[in-house]
């Protein structure tokens, strides 16, 4: 190869390299009015499973409206970051699923379409939506930033055979009972309760419930964080103590962040699990529905002054539309389609969650014991997580502090009121 050839060749390679570098930054948002891009959250056993479940419904929507929806199922570990990137860049999908606890945080970015009365009317009307679910779709006093899609709540799942073997006849209704039963169940390499100890979000959800029961709040009425109040310290300590003091949780659970606690429950390694809509996940892990019972999450035997009768957050998935969409009408009609009675029944039945619209909730598909328990919790004893812009930060900071406390408990370091308070104070100082 002569020098000239070499020069041309090098220039070509460099030019090609610069072109490929540019090629990566495409605009996801659909430009044509006949297409939409949709990021779905991972509701089923795997990303692939979700695609298989959603595709027939999207095909149906295309047949009805002529709009083709391209779906991408985003794993939970990436979803918030990718939503944030889409909000920041003004590029990305048209329609997205969001965890309902993030509603107010994402609302604060101003990147989501506001569902004022007109927009709600366009997707089927405000009155159809379950009020508790709608309350978890944005900050109070503002138009919701999203529309509820799937509703869920925490329940106590217990292994019927393990309970029978230990001579326990009914699921625990108080935490004291749960600890006592847990001790009976923690023998022979098996454990009483499985906990997803290294997953900050799961930890934060429990932090909320326990705090409510102890009469605590994570934010005051002005939206300022109140992490290290005595109530919150007691609440967090109660939860960590299942591993640290009661020793009904395998120390290994301090490492769990990939739903290993569900697997442990499905495999019989742990007899109890606190989870939202675990049924469909347990089914894929070959645990038949008659092998486990579903009960409401326990309460404190004697709640302190101010303690609330709350045993779950209003959990769920909302659907939001990005303002940057070039096809807002199409996006809204897609939201309307996904929240229609028919689709609500089909999808929630598959995922084991509950419809977020009243009209579909009466379907006989939602009268199985698991769904009945979830329904009852949602109607009577569930409360939404604080709908403040800093909610996602709360989940991260407090959830991570709890992860570190579980790590302490697992490695035999004492978990005391002081050590809990210190962690919570640190977390609070990191809020701005």
């Amino acid at each position, binding site marked *: 190869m002569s020098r000239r050839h070499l020069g041309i060749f090098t220039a070509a390679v460099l030019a090609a390299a610069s072109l490929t570098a540019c090629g990566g930054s495409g605009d996801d948002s659909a430009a044509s009015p006949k297409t939409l891009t949709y990021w779905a959250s991972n509701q089923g056993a795997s990303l692939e499973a979700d695609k298989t479940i959603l595709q027939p419904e999207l095909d149906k929507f295309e047949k009805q409206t002529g709009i083709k929806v391209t779906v991408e199922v985003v794993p939970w570990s990436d979803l918030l970051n990718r939503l944030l990137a889409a909000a920041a860049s003004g590029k990305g999908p048209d329609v997205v699923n969001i965890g309902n606890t993030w509603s107010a945080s994402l609302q604060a970015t101003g990147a989501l379409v506001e569902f004022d009365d007109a927009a709600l009317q366009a997707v089927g009307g405000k009155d159809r939506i379950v009020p508790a679910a709608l309350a978890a779709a944005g900050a109070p006093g503002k138009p919701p930033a999203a529309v509820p899609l799937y509703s869920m709540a925490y329940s106590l799942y217990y292994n019927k055979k393990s309970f029978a073997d230990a001579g326990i006849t009914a699921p625990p209704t108080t935490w004291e009972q749960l600890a006592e039963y847990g001790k009976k169940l923690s023998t022979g390499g098996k454990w009483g309760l499985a906990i997803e100890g290294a997953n900050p979000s799961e930890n934060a959800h429990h932090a909320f419930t326990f705090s409510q029961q102890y009469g605590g709040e994570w934010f005051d009425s002005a939206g300022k964080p109140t992490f290290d109040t005595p109530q919150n310290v007691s609440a967090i300590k109660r939860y960590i103590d299942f591993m640290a003091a009661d020793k009904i949780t395998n120390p290994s659970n301090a490492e769990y962040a990939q739903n290993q606690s569900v697997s442990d429950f499905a495999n019989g390694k742990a007899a109890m699990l606190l989870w939202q809509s675990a049924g469909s996940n347990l089914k894929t892990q070959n645990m038949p529905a008659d092998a486990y019972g579903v009960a409401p999450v326990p309460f404190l035997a004697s709640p302190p002054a101010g303690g609330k009768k709350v045993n779950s957050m209003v959990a769920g998935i909302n659907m939001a539309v990005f303002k940057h969409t070039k096809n807002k009408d199409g996006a809204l009609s897609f939201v309307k389609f996904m929240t229609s009675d028919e689709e609500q029944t089909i999808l929630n039945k598959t995922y084991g969650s509950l419809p977020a619209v009243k009209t579909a909730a009466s379907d006989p598909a939602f009268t199985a014991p698991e769904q009945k328990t979830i329904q009852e919790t949602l109607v009577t004893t569930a409360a939404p997580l604080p709908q403040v812009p800093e909610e996602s930060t709360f989940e991260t900071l407090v959830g991570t502090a709890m992860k570190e406390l579980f790590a302490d408990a697992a*490695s035999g370091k004492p978990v005391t009121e002081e050590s809990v308070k210190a962690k919570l104070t640190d977390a609070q*100082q990191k809020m701005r």
Partner: protein
Amino acid sequence: MATSTTAPDADQREPRAGSPARKPVRRPRGPRRSLLPYLLLAPAIVLELAIHVIPMVVGVWMSLLELTQFHIRDWSTAPFIGLENYRATLDLNSAAGKELLHSFWVTLAYSLLSVGFAWLLGISAAVVLQRPFRGRAILRALFLTPYALPVYAAVITWSFLLQRDTGLVNHVLVDQLGLMNDRPFWLIGDNSFWSLLVVSVWRNWPFAFLCLMAGLQNVPGELYEAAAIDGAGFWRRLRSVTLPMLRPVNLVLLLVLFLWTFNDFNTPFVLFGGSAPEQADLISIHIYRSSFKTWDFGSGSAMSVALLLFLLVVSAAYLLITNRRRDDHA
């Protein structure tokens, strides 16, 4: 002795610039000739600007803003707060400042140990494989595998190996060898630092090995012969011939390894997930957590800029000291 023989490879610019053989080939300068070099450089410059310079400048700008979720969509609305982010993150009396400092020390210890062990393993293997023997090529290829494996796949495998209940490490240590009664944790608590270090050394030493092996090819055999005639043993030859001859390679290798490990994000991120335990809270992960998880990109950028300045100072000091020493020798 060393300085007189380093001439062929120590400074590569010299022989090329003074090469008389090229002169007759040079053609008269026309407009086409003078444009070509710039055309050739253009893609590189554009990419350099796009990938390095512009993001860096933007990062510095971000560190002066209160860039939270309220302003992330439209940066022009973010209040300009000057050095407030720096004051908040570098205030060593606050929780955030203390954690940043802790993270800094952890990262420094991690980098020094990781580079040290990686270099030690690299030089040992390179020296052992310097002389030809049967199976040398196979060993070379084998040693390079950790470097050739994709980071994610390799580190995820490590995280499986290190799990307490189901990991292979505990299975071997506890169940098979019976060295410990209790199953230790490797991914949380104090051990997490050492786990991270082992994985990092495992990943990085093949690079050191590769560079040092290449450097050894340039050491003339006569030097060893002369040393042998003078009666120098293995250690003496290593100290007086091999290491001085490898000095130029080592200079670059140690700096590059240090910068890579100090900035290492993939290894801790994949090994621990988004939030590393305190004991292994490397600075890159710490910054990631501060900006992405708490949505405070301003203070995240302030930490990044502070880190950049620190690394600049370290690199400059390193180059200055090593250059001066080289001048002294010459």
